[in-house]
């Protein structure tokens, strides 16, 4: 039993089930990120934890107490909203202590809590201002401050950084991570940004179409995605998915990729278990950083395969150069060192780190387990 238990939770509107049997146990101090495209059900799930939406089936428990039907204010949670939801008519100080006031906390205690949190977030000088007078980043801090003052069991974040500009978003991301490391609070955080999910979380739940597609640590999600959806949703640029066939060479499984012109290339798998798939079609998944120039290849890898192909487009991005090629009739992207000498139209010998390659069953879209 976890600190926050989501047990077989479903949500329906009328006859339409929008959330299907979600089962997650969150440990104390954990930073769980719910990530997925819009409409995947992640915000609905968060609102159900908060008590802002009813639970159709299953139960949610916080610290062992089932909270289905418990009013949001009695769940000892705090929430940071996407729009920050600061009360426009109150000062920053009043905003932050409103919840304590509603819970009947005496004034001196409120003031003390406010002073502590304001100091922690470095917003002491803003306490008498109205939200309208604050910048986006300041509002964000105030919204977090309002949550912190309550000292809740669970913090809920609903896309808190999506209204900030790109640079501030990165700064605040670091800020939130620092805060979590310092306070060791339990956090459930909703975002559609997979980089936020990777950087902040201790665990990620990738959601799509009302299902949790995969629940795991950032490394698990990234290296061993459970299915094609998770593989392509997490990571930027997305994982290359190439149609291939498993063939045996000297008893060892290889991926055979056929190009439009009929030419066949083979890449040796690192997983011997794929022998069982001999002669069958698969989807080969290779992340862009696993296709590099030979000098940039991972030295620790035990299985670097060479792949000769024509370059169609190069996109220098400063730190790296992204190179597009056609593989198995589809575009594939390689991530090269910035100073690798490649040019569009030329042929090039790429190094493919097959240790990092994964294979998916085209029928079920699930990853073929080793």
């Amino acid at each position, binding site marked *: 039993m976890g600190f926050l238990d989501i047990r077989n939770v479903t949500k329906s509107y009328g006859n339409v089930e929008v959330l299907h049997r979600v089962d997650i146990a969150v440990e104390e101090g954990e930073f769980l990120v719910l990530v997925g495209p819009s409409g995947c059900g992640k915000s609905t799930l968060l609102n159900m934890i908060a008590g802002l939406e009813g639970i159709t089936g299953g139960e949610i428990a916080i610290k062992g107490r089932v909270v289905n039907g418990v009013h949001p*204010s009695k769940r000892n949670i705090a929430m940071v909203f996407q729009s920050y939801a600061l009360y426009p008519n109150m000062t920053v100080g009043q905003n932050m202590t409103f919840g304590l006031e509603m819970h009947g906390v005496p004034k001196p205690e409120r003031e003390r809590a406010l002073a502590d949190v304001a100091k922690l977030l470095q917003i002491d000088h803003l306490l008498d201002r109205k939200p309208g007078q604050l910048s986006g980043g300041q509002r964000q801090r105030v919204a977090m401050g309002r949550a912190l003052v309550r000292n809740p069991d669970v913090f809920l974040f609903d896309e808190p950084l999506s209204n900030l500009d790109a640079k501030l978003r990165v700064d605040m991301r670091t800020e939130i991570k620092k805060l979590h490391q310092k306070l060791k609070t339990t956090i459930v955080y909703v975002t559609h940004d997979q980089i936020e999910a990777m950087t902040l979380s201790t665990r990620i739940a990738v959601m799509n179409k009302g299902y949790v597609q995969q629940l795991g640590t950032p490394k698990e999600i990234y290296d061993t995605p459970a299915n094609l959806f998770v593989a392509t949703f997490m990571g930027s640029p997305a994982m290359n998915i190439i149609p291939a066939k498993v063939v045996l060479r000297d008893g060892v499984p290889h991926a055979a990729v056929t190009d439009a012109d009929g030419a066949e290339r083979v890449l040796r798998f690192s997983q011997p278990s794929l022998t069982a798939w001999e002669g069958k079609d698969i989807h080969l998944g290779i992340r862009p950083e696993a296709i590099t120039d030979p000098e940039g290849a991972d030295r620790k890898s035990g299985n670097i395969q060479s792949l000769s192909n024509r370059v169609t487009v190069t996109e220098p991005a400063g730190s790296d150069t992204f190179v597009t090629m056609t593989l198995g009739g589809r575009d594939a992207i390689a991530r090269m060192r910035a100073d690798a000498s490649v040019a569009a139209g030329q042929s090039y010998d790429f190094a493919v780190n097959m240790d990092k390659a994964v294979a998916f069953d085209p029928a079920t879209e699930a990853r073929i387990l080793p």
Partner: protein
Amino acid sequence: MTASTAPDFRTRLQDWLPKLVLAPSFAVTILFVYGFIAFTAVLSFTGSKMLPNFKWVGWENYEKLWALPAWNTAIVNIAIFATLYIVICTAVGLLLAVFLDQKIRGEGVLRPIYLYPMALSFIVTGTAWKWFLDPGIGLEKVVRLWGWESFSFTWIKDGDMAIYTIVIAAVWQTSGFVMAMFLAGLRGIDNEILKAAQIDGASNWQLYRRIVIPLLRPAFLSAFVILSHLAIKSYDLVVALTGGGPGRATEMPATFMYSYTFTRNQMGIGASSAVIMLMTIAAIMVPYLYAELKEKK
């Protein structure tokens, strides 16, 4: 493990409190609007005279109503009045809005002048125009004093023309409001569209005819709905301006309903005329409101 999944008291309270707050208004609406409509509709099928009674007479009131010359006058009048009122108000409103939108100096002074009549009661408007159009002291006399001895303007005393004086006064009262609606519409048009059209070589006339006016469709629709509903309800203005006269020349459905119900003691017929008025307005308003509310879902 505590396993109570029934909502706590506070959650349940918050579930029905909003509905409880809304309930009185809803009940009042159902009773005083829809209940009353039903009551009047029932009366229109009864032989009610001075007081309501429930002697069922079927369609008799409606048959009588359509045979009455006064009702037919009222129908002809409302048709003339509504058509002219809507067309002229829209034309004047659009013209003023387009002209005011040309970076006019003093727009801030002109706009309130065009709009202020809307703040007045129709009774005030009627009184002002009644005496201004009165041949004995008003316009006709003024023009004659200014030297045009043969000038004649006696519409308000002329059974054939009196209905047009109501149009004049009603246009005076409402056209500024239509102007404001169109002006808001014009100001809402993305300026880049206009610039693009000019780069495409459209003249001012083409710009308005081909681009701007089609974009004002929602404003046209709103203006039409509001004006037609004001036209059918028009009662005060007729009472104050002509009193339905001369004779019965400016009888309208609204005045007809009032006089048959309360002064001529023909409540059944009065009720049936009210039902016809409601049907007419509902035919315009219901699709409009339905579309408006559906869009926002």
